C-alpha cells in the first residue's frame, strides 16, 4: 500500500470508534508508522474532523417536547396512515397521558421514606471532589492514571466516553464513600475549566439511580451540573461547572 492509498483509507478513520487494527485500517496504519509526513497529515485530518463533529453537534438543537410525542407514538393505536401526530391536540393529549402515567408510576415506585441512596452518593462525592487537593496523582497519561488507580485497588473506567479524549486527562484521586472506594478522574474542559469523572463499581442503586442501559440522568448538585449513567458494571458521574447542554455534548455520539 502506498501513501496515497493509505491516505484515502485513513481519512475515514474515526478515533474512539474504529480500531486501528481492524482489517480495513491495519495496513494503512502500518504505512502511517513508516511515513512521518503521512502521520502529520493524519493528525491534521483528525483535528479537522473533530472540529466539524463539534460544530454539527452544536447545530442540532433538540426541540423541546419532542421526546413525549415520540414516547407516545407507541401508545396510540393508529387508525390511518400517519395522521394522528400531525394534529397538535392529539399529540398534546398523548403527551399528557404519558406524562401522567410516568408521574403515577414514579409515585408508586418511590416509597415515601426510602433512602435515596444514589442522590446521597452523588452529592457526597461531588462535594468531596471540590475539596483540596483536587487531585493527588497528576499525570496526563491515561495508562499511567489507570495503573495508579489499579495500584490503589479502585475502579478504573473500562472505557472513557467517546468525547472524553485521553489527551484531556489531568490526573486522579481516590475518594471514599460509605466504606467504598470511588475514583475521581479530572479532565481538562477548555474554557470551562475542568470536568470530573467519578466511577464506582457494583452498587445496586435504588430507583433514583441510573439503571444500566437507560439514558443518562441530569442533575444539579453542590453547585455543579452532573450527568450520571451506569454501564459495564460501573456507575459514572460527570460533574462540571458548565451548562447541562455542554455536559450532554461530552457524552453525545
Amino acid at each position, binding site marked *: 500500500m502506498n501513501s*496515497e*492509498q493509505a491516505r*484515502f*483509507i485513513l*481519512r*475515514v478513520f*474515526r478515533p*474512539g*470508534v*474504529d480500531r486501528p487494527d481492524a482489517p*480495513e485500517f491495519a495496513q494503512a496504519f502500518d504505512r502511517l508508522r513508516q511515513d512521518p509526513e503521512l502521520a502529520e*497529515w493524519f493528525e*491534521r*485530518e483528525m*483535528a*479537522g*474532523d*473533530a*472540529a*466539524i*463533529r463539534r*460544530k*454539527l*453537534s*452544536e*447545530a*442540532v*438543537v*433538540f*426541540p423541546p417536547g*419532542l*421526546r413525549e*410525542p*415520540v*414516547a407516545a*407514538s*407507541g401508545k396510540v393505536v*393508529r387508525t390511518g396512515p*400517519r395522521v394522528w*401526530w*400531525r394534529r397538535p391536540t392529539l399529540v398534546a393529549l398523548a403527551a399528557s397521558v404519558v406524562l401522567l402515567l410516568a408521574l403515577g408510576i414514579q409515585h408508586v415506585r418511590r416509597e415515601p421514606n426510602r433512602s435515596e441512596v444514589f442522590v446521597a452518593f452523588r452529592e457526597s462525592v461531588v462535594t468531596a471532589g471540590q475539596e483540596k487537593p483536587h487531585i493527588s496523582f497528576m499525570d496526563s497519561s491515561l495508562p499511567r492514571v489507570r495503573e495508579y488507580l489499579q495500584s490503589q485497588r479502585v475502579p478504573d473506567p473500562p472505557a472513557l466516553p*467517546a468525547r472524553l479524549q485521553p489527551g484531556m486527562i489531568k490526573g486522579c484521586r481516590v475518594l471514599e464513600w460509605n466504606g467504598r472506594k470511588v475514583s475521581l478522574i479530572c479532565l481538562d474542559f477548555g474554557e470551562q475549566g475542568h470536568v470530573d469523572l467519578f466511577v464506582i463499581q457494583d452498587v445496586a442503586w435504588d430507583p433514583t439511580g441510573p439503571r444500566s*442501559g*437507560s*439514558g443518562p440522568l441530569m442533575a444539579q448538585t453542590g453547585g455543579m451540573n452532573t450527568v450520571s449513567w451506569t454501564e459495564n458494571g460501573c456507575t459514572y458521574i460527570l460533574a462540571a461547572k458548565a451548562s447541562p447542554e455542554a455536559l450532554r455534548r461530552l457524552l*453525545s*455520539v
Partner: protein
Amino acid sequence: MEDSRYEDAVSQLYEPAYRFARSLARSESDAGELTQEAFSRLFEKRDSIRDESKMKSWLFTTLYRVFLGWKRRENRWPQVEIGEAEADLPQIDPQQVSRCEAADVLGALHAIEERYRVPLALFYMDDLSYEEIAALLEVPMGTVMSRISRGKDALRKLLAEPKASSGPGILPFPPASTSTQAAHE
C-alpha cells in the same frame, strides 16, 4: 419487547435518531416527524426485534427508509447536482471550522448530494459501525468509505467558500481518481 423496554429505547435513542433525521431533513419540524414515524414503526415491530443490540441500526435504517419514501412521494428535498471535478483540495483547517457558525456547517452538509451526505452524516455522528452503515445504505463497505471520502471533499470545499452553501447550485466535486477509489465505487 416490553413497553418498558420501548420507553428505554426512546430514552437512549431518540437523540441520536433526531440528530440523524436532522442531517437528512432541512427543517426541524420534518426531522421531528421523521423521528416520530421511525419510533412509531419501532413500537409496531417491537416483538419482532429479538436482538436489542441491533435496535439502533434497525431504527436508523427505518428512519432512512421513511425519509426515502417521503422524498419519493412529495419531493420535499430537491437534489443538488454534482458538477465539475476538482482535485488536490487543501485539508480542512480546524481553526477555520471553529470560526464558522454551527448552522452554516449543518447548512453545508445539507448542500451535499444525498448519496454522499447520508454516509458523511453517519460518519460524523459516530453512532454506527461501517458494517451497519453499509447495511443501512445497502452498498459494500468500500463504497461507504469512498462516499465518505468524497463527501468530505465536498464539505471542505463548501466551508472554504461559504457563499457556495447559501443556495442551491452546482457543487464542485473531486473525481474518484485513484485506483483505490475506483475499486470502491
